[in-house]
Structure formats: structure tokens, C-alpha cells
């Protein structure tokens, strides 16, 4: 049987919408999230944080805290592994400051006490002596001559000579000759754009429970998108052997990229090691805002040339991103995604990674891409307006397709951009008349998608039911898609498959649930693990029948003889084979380990109608349609959910959300009251269209869908607002005051 490359059509389970396996636990309150675990003798940790944006730590006096009888330990940087380098050093530096506090909220010490209240009280008694240093929080200001130097040797070799030491990485890509391209254009527009840092805004704060003994062996329970990366990083930061630390992923209350690294976990482990007791740490919301990774803020310049017929002749972009006090702002992704939807002869993009006194940025859904789309798609909209062209037709005319060269190098495989544009053009939304005061905006968006290390095990139970172990935390219904794929392959009912997210001691290494990779990569491995199981099932049937295993086929949950010489036997159901497996060779377990290639990129097109209140400057999103290529939707409800969730986060980013820093370098709005994410009454229903252009790199054609949905909204909404207001909005968020100002500037009031 050559099952490896078989591509199934005529699905039975794939594409249906069964109840998710963890649904009952989650609607009854039974599901255990990060903060829901306890252990006998448990202590509570609390973290001491810098109130200064930039300060040298001259001394830490812990004596008053330690004098409290509830306090069992205090840790500082000295309690972590010395001599780390590279990203491990960056993460440690972020988890616990060394010589300097680099941003408001930077951890400088931590305490463990017998109650949560006592721990918080004790944290206030830790006295830190600071020498306050000049700070900078703005990306452009941080690049200027004379800006305070945040970390002297943070830059790598990519940075051109003569740049400020706060510029730590540089990227350049493209092809052709943009000057030639601009010379061919009938109209060239160049604009400057800015976006503010936004937070992933998961509703569950970071939480963990750690146990670490004097023997160097430990257990960690935490809310994470990836427990193997947590294991690896914590082991390095604590100086442990990786396998000595077992990490279990709790149910996770949202992540969006923000839970792909560690913050409190190494601290809880250090406190546990010092006290020989389990230590739990739960972040407050203000800690989440001040000290976990928001996305980058940006300053961007984009220049595009177009002919009267809508042909784009050249595109050029400069993208400056600050990523907090550490290297890693995803500027290369911004640069690479910027013109990805378009087939351009001449294109050039440059990116700068800039550090400043803010928390270390973390991935946020398609890191770097939404900002790029905001700038590029706004300029395209303006070109269409001035040349009197239809924005979808222009995008169709210039759109990337199979065989065209991507703006960042490769030649596209089978992709679905054109299909999303056609579906958007044909959607009733696009031709619906606008109401008074409304504008319509369109935008495309692109994300690479990721594959990553993946390991899956599928074990049969004696009654023929199936236990599937995956290593990717279920962040939005992935257990359902895994069960669907296993059921599809094995020919068993969906509810006979139980999916468990295994801990680090029970499965091979799994990369993080990020990069829209779970349904693609864990799905691919699930399918292959099921095929591995089927080979074994067929082998058992063949032995029983005394025929060649090659003469046995798997059909509808049964082994059946196939081929001219196989003989006549009744189909042998999975349950019969399973019932006898102990006597016919032992347990039947299938597995698969892989780092797949072929994640399959994803494109989307969004249409938005927005109304602008001319008196207050407030924007109301009145209609929203998401069209996106999913390759193949395994569980369409959860695909739609990703589309809607990404659009909603994009709406927040475009209209309300921003990190606001005071002149003192302190974050002014570390709470949901002043950092306002969209609430139910802010939003309309969000219509979705699932386009399916199969990904050649997956047995069922799956492309990841989680991230692309946040790429078009910033631009689509900005285009709608600009068209409603009659003035181009180049700065996000488009808060009411800003829109009002733009309206007043335009009318000269």
C-alpha cells in the first residue's frame, strides 16, 4: 500500500462541524487553565518590577521582605544560570533584569510567600536602588543621533555602518530596478505611515505552577503555546538538563503569539528550587501589559507607481520597527509581506530593527505583516482613487499567482490570492450601496505560514477506540480538527477518537502552536500516524488470513482483501483486530515525526464599510466581510472563527488600541479600561467566505488560517475611513480625536 502520498477526495468527516471534544469541559467550568492548578504546600510568587523606563540597578535590599514570616524566599538575577549567550541571554535578561532595568515593568526580583496577599505585600518591601538613565520609547527618536543607547553591543553584522547603536538588525530584499519602474508610471505616490504597539490581549494572564527539587528534577504546569520551548528555555535559564524538566501545557486562554516564550516560568522554578516547595505565579493584567510582549510600533515610508490602466510599475518600502529593549522586531517579515500579494517587476524593501525602552516584543498573529499591508494597501487605494480605478480590479490585474516571482524571492507554488479577490468582487457586499456618511475599504493580506517540528502518536485501545497524542496546545478547537483527520483516515466515527495534548515527557519535540501551523503540521502528522496504524492493522489481518500484507486494503474502518490473489475473506473491523492485538503481536501504535516542508502560504481579501461621525470623529464598522483561502477547511466553524477573530483584533488595532507612554517612559494605560479592545457592542456580524485552493504540501490540502485574517483589516478599515472622511488616514489607531483633526484640517475649520 502506498499510502504516504495518497490525497483523499470525497471526504466523509472532513468538512463537517462536530462538537469539539473539550467543549463540555469548557462550558461547565471544568477545564483547567494556567491559574487553576494547585499543589499541596504550594507557595505564591510575586514579582518586583521597575517603575523606571531605564535605570541602573545599584542595589537590592531584600531584608525587610525576608523579615515577613510568610516569606520563604527572594530571588534575583543571581539565582539564574550564568554565562548564557544569544537568545537565551536575551530571554533571561527580560525575565529578570541584570545590571539595568530596560523598561517600565521590567522584573528585578521575586518573592515567594505562603499566601498571594503576603507575596504581594512582600514584593512592595523589596527596596531597589536605581540610578535613573535617559530613556527613549519612540522608534524614530531611538534612531536619531544623540538618542540614549539602550544596550551597547546589541547590533549584529547586518547593520550598515554609521547607524545608531539602537538599530540592531537590517534587512533588504527585492528585485528589478525601482527607479526604472517609477519612470514608467503615470502616477507615483509616496506616503509616511505609523502604527502603535498593540497587545495580543489574551483574556487569560500568564500563569504557572512550578516544582523543582534539589536533585535538579522538576515539573512545570503553565499556560503556553509551546511546552517544549518552555522546557528548553527554562532548562537553559536554570542550568538544568532538558529532560529533567517535564512541562505540561494547561488549557490556554488565548495566546495569539504572546505565549510563545517564557516570563514567569523560570522565576517560579527558581523560587521553587530555593524553597523546595511548589510555587505558583499568576500575572496581574497590568503586569501582562507592562511586561509581556506587545507587537512592534512602526514608522514606514511606502512609494508605489501605477499606470493609468492600473498596472503597478514599482513598489518600494522602508519599514522601521521597534521591538522593545531587545533585538527581534519582525521587520524582515514586514518587508517581505509588504508587496507579497503583487507580481512586480521592480520592488525593493528595507527593514530596520530598533530597540528602545519598552517590553520585549512578542509575536502577535502574523508578526509584522498587518502593518506592511496597512502602508502598501493604503497607497494602492489612493492610487485607485486618483486614477479612477476599481480597487479589486486593480488587485486582480497585479495579483500574484502560481509561477510569478514573489517580492521577496521565491516563485509562488499554487496560491489562492486571485480566487479570494474574485470571490470578494462577486460577494453581494461589494456591490451593495453605501449609506450616507459611509466609506468602503478593500485590502489584501498575506502570511507565510509555518510548519515546524512535529511528533504525533496514535494508540489503539482494546475496544477499537483511538487515543491520539499531539504536542501542540489546543488554542482554538484543534483537538476537533485532529480527531476529524484521524477519523477520516481510520474510517471510525469522530467521537471514537480522544485527543490529548501530551506533556514533554510523553512525546517527541513539538514546535509551538504558532505560525498557523497546528492544523497543517499536527494534522499532517496525525494523518501519517493513522496511515502507520493502518499498515499495522492490515498486517495483523494479513497474518490471520495467511496472505501477503500487500494484498490487504483498509476501507471504512475494516481490513479487506484486495487484488486478484488475495482470496475471499470477510472484512475485519478495527475493533476485532484491536481486541486480539495482545495475542497477535502486541499493542498497535502508529506514530509520525516530521518537520514538514510545504506549509502553504495564505492570502485573504477583506471588504469593510465604515461610517464616520463628523462631529465626534468616531468610526463605526457597519459591515465586514472576510474572504480567505483555507486550502481545505477541516472544521469550517473553527476556520470561520479564526477569520472573525482576526478581523476583530484588526478592528481594535485600527481604531482603538495603542500603548501610550508618558514623558517619564511609563506605560499610561496598562488595563482594559484604558487599553480598549473591541467589545460585543462595537462590532457587526462578520461575514466569512472560505475559499479552498488546496495546498500541495498537505495530504488534504490544508493551509494554516490563524494569522492571515489579521493582515488586511488595518488597511481595509483605514481605506474605508479615509473614503468616508475624504481624507487619507496614515496613522493608527484612528481614534476619534485623530479623525476629527483630519476632518478639520481638510475643511480648514
Amino acid at each position, binding site marked *: 500500500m502506498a499510502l504516504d502520498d495518497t490525497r483523499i477526495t470525497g471526504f466523509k468527516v472532513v468538512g463537517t*462541524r462536530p*462538537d*469539539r471534544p*473539550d*467543549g*463540555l469541559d*469548557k*462550558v*461547565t*467550568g*471544568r*477545564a*483547567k*487553565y494556567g*491559574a*487553576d492548578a494547585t499543589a499541596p504546600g504550594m507557595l505564591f510568587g510575586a514579582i518586583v518590577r521597575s517603575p523606571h523606563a531605564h535605570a541602573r540597578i545599584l542595589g537590592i535590599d531584600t531584608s525587610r521582605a525576608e523579615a515577613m514570616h510568610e516569606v520563604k524566599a527572594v530571588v534575583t538575577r543571581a539565582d539564574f544560570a550564568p554565562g548564557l549567550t544569544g537568545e537565551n541571554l536575551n530571554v533571561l535578561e527580560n525575565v529578570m533584569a541584570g545590571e539595568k532595568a530596560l523598561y517600565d515593568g521590567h522584573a528585578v526580583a521575586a518573592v515567594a510567600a505562603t*499566601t*498571594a*496577599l503576603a507575596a504581594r505585600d512582600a514584593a512592595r518591601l523589596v527596596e531597589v536602588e536605581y540610578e535613573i538613565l535617559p530613556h527613549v520609547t519612540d522608534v524614530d527618536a531611538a534612531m536619531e543621533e544623540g538618542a540614549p543607547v539602550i544596550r551597547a553591543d546589541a547590533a549584529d553584522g547586518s547593520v550598515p555602518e554609521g547607524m545608531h547603536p539602537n538599530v540592531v538588525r537590517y534587512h533588504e530584499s527585492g528585485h528589478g530596478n525601482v527607479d526604472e519602474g517609477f519612470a514608467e508610471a503615470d502616477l507615483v505616490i509616496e506616503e509616511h505611515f505609523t502604527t502603535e504597539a498593540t497587545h*495580543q*490581549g*489574551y*483574556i*487569560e*494572564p500568564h500563569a504557572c505552577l512550578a516544582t523543582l527539587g534539589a536533585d535538579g528534577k522538576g515539573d512545570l504546569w503553565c499556560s503556553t503555546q509551546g511546552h517544549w520551548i518552555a522546557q528548553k528555555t527554562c532548562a537553559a535559564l536554570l542550568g538544568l538538563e532538558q529532560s529533567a524538566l517535564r512541562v505540561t501545557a494547561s*488549557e*490556554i*486562554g*488565548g*495566546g*495569539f503569539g504572546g505565549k510563545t516564550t517564557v516570563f514567569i516560568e523560570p522565576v517560579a522554578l527558581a523560587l521553587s528550587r530555593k524553597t523546595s516547595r511548589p510555587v505558583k505565579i*499568576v500575572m*496581574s*493584567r497590568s503586569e501582562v501589559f507592562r511586561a509581556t510582549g506587545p507587537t512592534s510600533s512602526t514608522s514606514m515610508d511606502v512609494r508605489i507607481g501605477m499606470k493609468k490602466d492600473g498596472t503597478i510599475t514599482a513598489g518600494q518600502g522602508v519599514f522601521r520597527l521597534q521591538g522593545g529593549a531587545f533585538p527581534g522586531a519582525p521587520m524582515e517579515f514586514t518587508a517581505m509581506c509588504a508587496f507579497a500579494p503583487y507580481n512586480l517587476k521592480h520592488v525593493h524593501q528595507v527593514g530596520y530593527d530598533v530597540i528602545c525602552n519598552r517590553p520585549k516584543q512578542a509575536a502577535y498573529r502574523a508578526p509584522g505583516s498587518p502593518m506592511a499591508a496597512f502602508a502598501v494597501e493604503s497607497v494602492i487605494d489612493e492610487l485607485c482613487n486618483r486614477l479612477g480605478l476599481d480597487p479589486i480590479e486593480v488587485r486582480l490585474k497585479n495579483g500574484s499567482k502560481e509561477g510569478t516571482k514573489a517580492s521577496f524571492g521565491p516563485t509562488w507554488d499554487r496560491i489562492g490570492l486571485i480566487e479570494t479577490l474574485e470571490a470578494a468582487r462577486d460577494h453581494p457586499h461589494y456591490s451593495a450601496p453605501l449609506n450616507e456618511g459611509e466609506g468602503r475599504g478593500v485590502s489584501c493580506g498575506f502570511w507565510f505560514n509555518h510548519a515546524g517540528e512535529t511528533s504525533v502518536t496514535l494508540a489503539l485501545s482494546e475496544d477499537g477506540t483511538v487515543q491520539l497524542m499531539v504536542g501542540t496546545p489546543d*488554542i*482554538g*478547537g484543534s483537538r476537533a480538527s485532529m480527531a476529524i483527520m484521524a477519523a477520516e483516515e481510520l474510517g471510525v466515527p469522530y467521537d471514537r477518537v480522544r485527543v490529548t495534548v501530551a506533556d514533554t515527557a510523553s512525546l517527541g519535540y513539538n514546535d509551538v502552536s504558532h505560525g498557523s501551523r497546528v492544523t497543517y503540521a499536527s494534522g499532517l502528522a496525525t494523518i501519517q500516524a493513522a496511515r502507520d496504524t493502518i499498515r499495522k492493522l492490515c498486517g495483523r489481518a494479513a497474518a490471520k488470513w495467511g496472505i501477503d500484507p500487500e494484498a490487504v486494503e483498509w476501507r471504512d474502518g475494516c481490513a479487506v482483501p484486495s487484488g486478484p490473489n488475495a482470496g475471499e475473506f470477510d472484512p475485519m473491523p478495527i475493533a476485532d483486530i484491536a481486541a486480539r492485538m495482545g495475542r497477535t503481536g502486541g499493542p498497535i501504535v502508529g506514530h509520525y515525526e516530521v518537520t514538514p516542508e510545504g506549509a502553504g502560504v495564505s492570502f485573504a481579501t477583506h471588504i469593510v464599510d465604515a461610517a464616520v461621525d463628523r462631529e465626534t470623529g468616531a468610526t463605526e464598522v457597519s459591515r465586514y466581510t472576510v474572504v480567505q483561502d483555507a486550502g481545505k477547511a477541516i*472544521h469550517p*466553524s*473553527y476556520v*470561520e*472563527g*479564526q477569520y*472573525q*477573530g482576526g*478581523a*476583530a*483584533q484588526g478592528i481594535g488595532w485600527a481604531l482603538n488600541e495603542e500603548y501610550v507612554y508618558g514623558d517619564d517612559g511609563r506605560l499610561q494605560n496598562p*488595563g*482594559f*479600561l484604558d487599553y480598549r*479592545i*473591541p*467589545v*460585543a*457592542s462595537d*462590532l457587526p*456580524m*462578520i461575514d466569512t467566505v472560505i475559499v479552498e485552493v488546496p495546498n500541495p504540501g498537505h495530504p488534504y490540502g490544508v493551509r494554516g488560517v490563524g494569522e492571515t485574517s489579521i493582515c488586511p483589516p488595518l488597511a481595509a478599515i483605514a481605506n474605508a475611513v479615509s473614503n468616508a472622511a475624504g481624507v487619507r488616514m496614515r496613522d493608527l489607531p484612528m481614534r476619534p480625536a485623530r479623525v476629527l483633526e483630519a476632518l478639520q484640517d481638510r475643511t480648514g475649520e
Partner: protein
Amino acid sequence: MTQIHVTATVNGDPVEFLCDPRETLLDVLRDRLGLTGTKEGCGTGDCGACSVTLGGRVVCSCLVLGAEADGAEIGTVEGMADSETLHPLQRKFIEHAALQCGICTPGILVAAKNLLERTPNPTETEVRYWLAGNLCRCTGYDKIVQAVMDAAEEMREIP
């Protein structure tokens, strides 16, 4: 610090506990009574993940002190299902895929149940405004609103 003795009713069951004067009702439910279905998203009354009913009204349990609950009737997500039978809202949330990560779900279910007890036939706008204090970062609210409307319809048909 001296602890306060409190008696109350949670999901119909009498409970008794000691608590620090600074502890919130949310802390008490989660840490003293082991009812971790109620979640903490902010601790400042801004997210609704901690929604419970107190004497029939929806409140943010992070804004109520444990000591204030003395003599009160409290309802949490753990009390929604009738043994094996889920509340229609719980069923509809699963059916409509109205949860992704599920951390907001307990608070939203408690708030939505309270809405339907007062307003059996809410409009979409009423649902959206009633739930405006319950943040969900995953779903964009679309499927949540649909699940609530659908549950309301079913509950009207089978009183």
C-alpha cells in the same frame, strides 16, 4: 490579619469560609471553595471573565469582597447545568463553536443566562450591549451572539 467568617449559598449549596478582609469574592470562589470555573482576566472589573450572579444580579466577582458575600446567594458557571443536562446556552455554545480558547466562556454564559431570564426574546443589539462588559479576544463575538440568540429561541419554544 484576622480572618472573617462568612456563610453564603453557592449554586444552591450552603457554604462557609474564612477569608482575609482584602480577599475578593473571586479569590474566595477559586482559592477557598475550589470553584475555578470563574476566571480572572483583569481583577479590575473590565473583562467580565469573573461574572457571577449575586442575589440574581450579574456582578464582577473581582469587585466584590468575600466578606460582602455573607448571607448572599451566589450563582457560578458550575451551577448552570442540571446534573447531566446542560443548560441550552451551554449546548448552543458548543454547537455554534462560540468558544475558541474558552476562558471568557464561563463569564459570558453566566451573563447571557441572566439576560435570557429577564429578556427571553432579545434583539441582536440587546445581546451585544448586555454582553459588552464581557471581553472575548478570540471570536469577534459573532458566534457568541448567534449562540445566545439561538438558545433564546429554543428556550422560548420549550418553556
